[in-house]
């Protein structure tokens, strides 16, 4: 019959499939780029097991298909860094701390029910806005867009979101204006756009000035000066996923001529 099912040496940056078991490096000082087969003592420090990986008896079990990534530990010698799988998904699963765009669907007493694109609606308290008190309620109607972050998001509880940060300030969060366009893209594109110094946003900014809000649940809100410019920006962002950077530069060059 086949072997025990443990994977051989897997380099970071390779494609991994669900069911692969990754063993952790034996020596804590060893290069964290390789995950070797063989007996291993527990590595010193904490190893962060990111999305797509789960702890199992032998090491890390891969649960999603994608590229294996590794981030070396920040401090000198402490911790074992972080491993995760870069995978592509359309459906969002709430994660604590993620900034998201939600659509208010119902007002129930003291809380709003917000659709965030997951399996459950999130709850948003009316006091979770900057400067909101029991007498000074925020002006939120059903159908409004809100930009907030999750404070409670796990598989067993209903997700809860707020539109203020830990010090009580809005910090850019809150109700999004009534104009503009909301559309949905895949989660991988959002992560690409949120990377520092993203070329796509900078190039689009040179074309037309626009406001943009990116939610980790795959939703983007865009507003430019005219409706036509808004639609052009939205179409380019949606198409960016399937275009190489040369094709994108060509499309933008054609648009800036016309």
């Amino acid at each position, binding site marked *: 019959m*086949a072997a025990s099912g443990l994977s051989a040496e897997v380099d970071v940056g390779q494609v991994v499939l669900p*069911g692969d078991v990754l063993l952790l490096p034996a020596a804590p000082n060893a290069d964290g780029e390789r995950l070797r087969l063989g007996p291993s003592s527990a590595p010193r420090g904490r190893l962060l097991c990111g999305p797509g990986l*789960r702890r199992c008896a032998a090491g890390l079990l891969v*649960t*999603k298909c994608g590229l294996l990534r590794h981030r070396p530990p920040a401090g000198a010698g402490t911790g074992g860094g972080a491993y995760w799988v870069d995978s592509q998904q*359309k*459906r969002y*699963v709430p994660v604590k701390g993620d900034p998201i765009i939600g659509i208010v669907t119902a007002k129930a007493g003291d809380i709003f029910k917000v659709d965030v694109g997951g399996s*459950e609606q999130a709850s948003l308290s009316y006091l979770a806005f900057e400067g909101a008190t029991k007498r000074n309620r925020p002006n939120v109607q059903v159908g409004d867009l809100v930009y907030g972050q999750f404070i409670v998001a796990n598989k067993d509880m209903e997700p809860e979101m707020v539109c203020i940060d830990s010090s009580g300030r809005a910090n850019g969060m809150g109700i999004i204006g009534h104009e503009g366009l909301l559309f949905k893209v895949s989660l991988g594109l959002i992560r690409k756009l949120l990377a520092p110094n993203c070329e796509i946003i900078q190039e689009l900014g040179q074309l037309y000035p626009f406001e943009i809000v990116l939610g980790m649940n795959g939703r983007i809100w865009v507003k430019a000066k005219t409706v036509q410019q808004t639609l052009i920006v939205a179409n380019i962002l949606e198409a960016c996923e399937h275009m190489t950077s040369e094709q994108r530069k060509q499309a933008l060059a054609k648009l800036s001529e016309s």
Partner: protein
Amino acid sequence: MGSEPEPGCALRPFAVEQGLLSRPDGSAAFVQGDTSVLAGVYGPAEVRSSRESPERAALDVLLRPKVGLPGVLERSREQMVRRACEAALLGELHPRSSVTLVLQVVSDAGSLLSCCLNAACLALLDAGLPLRSLFCGVTCALAPDGAVALDPSARQEKEARAVLTFAFESTEKRLLLSTTRGACSAKEVEYVRDVHGTSV
């Protein structure tokens, strides 16, 4: 690997395309010879309170035949695909939610159940749902003289004494599903499963 495959035990050429449908969260089309199945996965999504489970995601499989309404045969195949998928899916990570898998038969030229299993696995993979392992399906036909044919065509299935379908998971090649139609002895089932099933 195992022994050399015997003549007549070669699989028909197969092809896969993932992410071809825009509405579902994950989709895959699997083609085995002339048999082709399209699968779409929606999930983890909202669930009706009657189907809600506090421990795991509720998995629903819908199999749509090429013509006509789904009948009893489709219902039994749905349950078989559902059991194989539940063994591979990590439903504990998404309690109180539902995962819906829709399989559409595009063309049926033999080995339909294994084509459905393969399309289901790849659609779950495309949707980014957490899986314990991958799985695959394979069909074998036992001719009246005892010869074994893997991945039989419709004609081979009709002439066969028995048609057996197995699903294997990818990490330790363990058996997830085994179903037989026709008359064959228990020893023949074991032989087909051990020799031909795991060499796939």
